[in-house]
């Protein structure tokens, strides 16, 4: 389907309600299709009860809604069992569970945790703090000029002292895909646990945890057109079984006495308190929708959009791409700067022209500092964008330049 034609926009009420809006910030959060909004409402209208607790049929319906969504997530990421899918609030919380529980179990003084300098703060600060608590060392892998971690970098930084390797699948700033299988092999060859932050990749490509070779993987529902406030931590069953709980309280116990408690099996061990059942149910609807569109179609369409975006930016001599100059190195995300104009000014002027992009440090301050820039602009696409959205951005950037420099 050509990117000049857009059969998808009609599925998204916000885009229908704002026909002039070029929404190019899906890497921050996707828009939601009608079926997801309907599912959220349907849960409260037809199956609202507290899941897991009640013995009456309504509570069973709510429990089933979560179980179905859990099984769906497992299928979506190629997990062998739905019990390996832990629901939490967001990818940040999933990565906090990983860092806290692995950190408390695995890390001691002198150990190392290897992450990349590209990590979103949510896959950086939890490890930074875990290392600080344990007296372990946080080691940073740094990308080449195309935004990729090289084999040489892996060989140099992942070694016998490495206890955990944690890496983004796709960088939220550079858009580059990381060599996940190679990192998995290096981690496992050294006896380390391998964690993948798939928040930025899952909306754009098929994910299969056994193919990736990871031990833990974090996802965010709202980047996959699901509701905000739902995240996923997937983990190998034996690993999840061996980890201590993260939050404690209701629903995560087996039995409790005045002085002690034993834990429920996974996934409930990691799901203290009432879950966002409606959100989880609606996340299942989002996966239905995404599978209906087809990840192959999503990938092909977004490839075309990124190519068009990179071509358009190349026509603007005052725009510098942050990251690889090759469109093929960008998955869904293109970051850039306008020479001499602060990204916040760029974003404000684009906003006045109804073009929504992100500007700032993109929750990746160490990356930007390492690259020697304070902040940058980021345009990100989803399959529901079209050529008009990209054109609006390119015209808008010409306008930004005109505002500051007139027509020279």
């Amino acid at each position, binding site marked *: 389907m050509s990117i000049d034609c857009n059969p998808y926009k009609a599925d998204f009420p916000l885009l229908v309600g704002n026909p002039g809006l070029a929404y190019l910030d899906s890497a921050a959060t996707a828009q939601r299709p009608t079926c997801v909004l309907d599912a959220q409402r349907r849960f409260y209208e037809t199956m609202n009860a507290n899941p897991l607790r009640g013995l009456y049929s309504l509570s069973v319906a709510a429990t089933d809604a979560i179980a179905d969504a859990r099984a769906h997530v497992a299928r979506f990421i190629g997990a062998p069992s739905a019990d390996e899918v832990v629901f939490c609030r967001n990818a940040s919380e999933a990565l906090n569970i990983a860092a806290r529980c692995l950190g408390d179990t695995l890390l001691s003084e002198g150990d190392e945790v290897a992450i990349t300098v590209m990590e979103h*703060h949510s896959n950086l600060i939890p490890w930074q703090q875990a290392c600080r608590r344990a007296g372990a060392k946080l080691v940073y892998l740094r990308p080449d000029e195309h935004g990729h971690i090289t084999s040489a970098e892996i060989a140099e930084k992942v070694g016998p002292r490495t206890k955990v390797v944690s890496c983004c699948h796709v960088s939220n700033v550079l858009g580059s895909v990381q060599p996940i299988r190679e990192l998995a092999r290096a981690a496992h060859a050294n006896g380390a646990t391998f964690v993948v932050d798939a928040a930025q990749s899952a909306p754009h490509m098929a994910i299969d945890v056994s193919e990736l070779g990871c031990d833990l993987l974090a996802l965010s529902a709202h980047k996959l057109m699901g509701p905000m406030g739902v995240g996923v931590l997937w983990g190998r069953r034996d690993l999840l079984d061996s980890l201590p709980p993260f939050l404690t309280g209701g629903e995560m116990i087996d039995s409790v006495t005045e002085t002690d408690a034993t834990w429920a099996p996974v996934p409930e061990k990691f799901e203290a308190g009432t879950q966002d059942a409606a959100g989880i149910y609606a996340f299942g609807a989002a996966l239905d929708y995404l599978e209906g569109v087809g990840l192959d179609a999503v990938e092909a369409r977004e490839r075309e959009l990124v190519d068009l975006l990179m071509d358009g930016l190349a026509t603007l001599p005052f725009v510098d791409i942050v990251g690889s100059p090759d469109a093929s190195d960008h998955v869904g995300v293109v970051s850039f700067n306008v020479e001499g*104009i*602060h*990204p*916040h*000014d760029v974003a*404000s*002027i684009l*906003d*006045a*022209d*109804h073009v929504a992009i992100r*500007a*700032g*440090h*993109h*929750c*990746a*301050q160490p990356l930007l500092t390492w690259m020697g820039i*304070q*902040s940058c602009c980021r345009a990100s696409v989803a399959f529901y964008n079209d050529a008009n959205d990209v054109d609006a951005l390119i*015209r*808008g950037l010409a*306008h930004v330049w005109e*505002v*500051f420099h007139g027509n020279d």
Partner: protein
Amino acid sequence: MATTSGGGVYSPALLEHVSNPDYHVHLDDATCTHEGVNPSCGDDLTISYSLAPDGTIADAAWEGTGCAVSQGSADMMCDLVIGRTPAEAARLARLFGRMVRGEETDADALAELDEASCLESISHMPARVKCAELAWRTLAEMAGTPTDDDGAPTAGEGTLADEKGTNGGSPAAPRG
């Protein structure tokens, strides 16, 4: 191309202050110097002023990095406060703060801000209020009167040499 109030902030007056700032200099004989930062934006401004024998601001200047809104706003502020006492300057800084937060819209009241009143439309861009406010907030801190304080000014001569003020916590500010 259609522009809303957001685009209107980038007026010729603001852009003239950005491209040809009058007060973007280092003040060697500063009586008082204070740094203000917006951690979430990376705006970093140092405001300085020197006092004349009669206690009024003889010269004012800003240094630092940031967006056009924070820099243009700082330049306009320096222009406005020269010849006034620190207490008056702090009062104007509070007025500016109320303007960009949309709490003061009376044109007669805002006329006192002279050219800086052209930044009123920032009040429709909540994410940029912190940028516009940074210089003014820093100045008010120098004089010991935070811009949030709507009470009577208690400004005296600033004694905060090279201290750092941080504008944190605005719920509308972009974060990462």
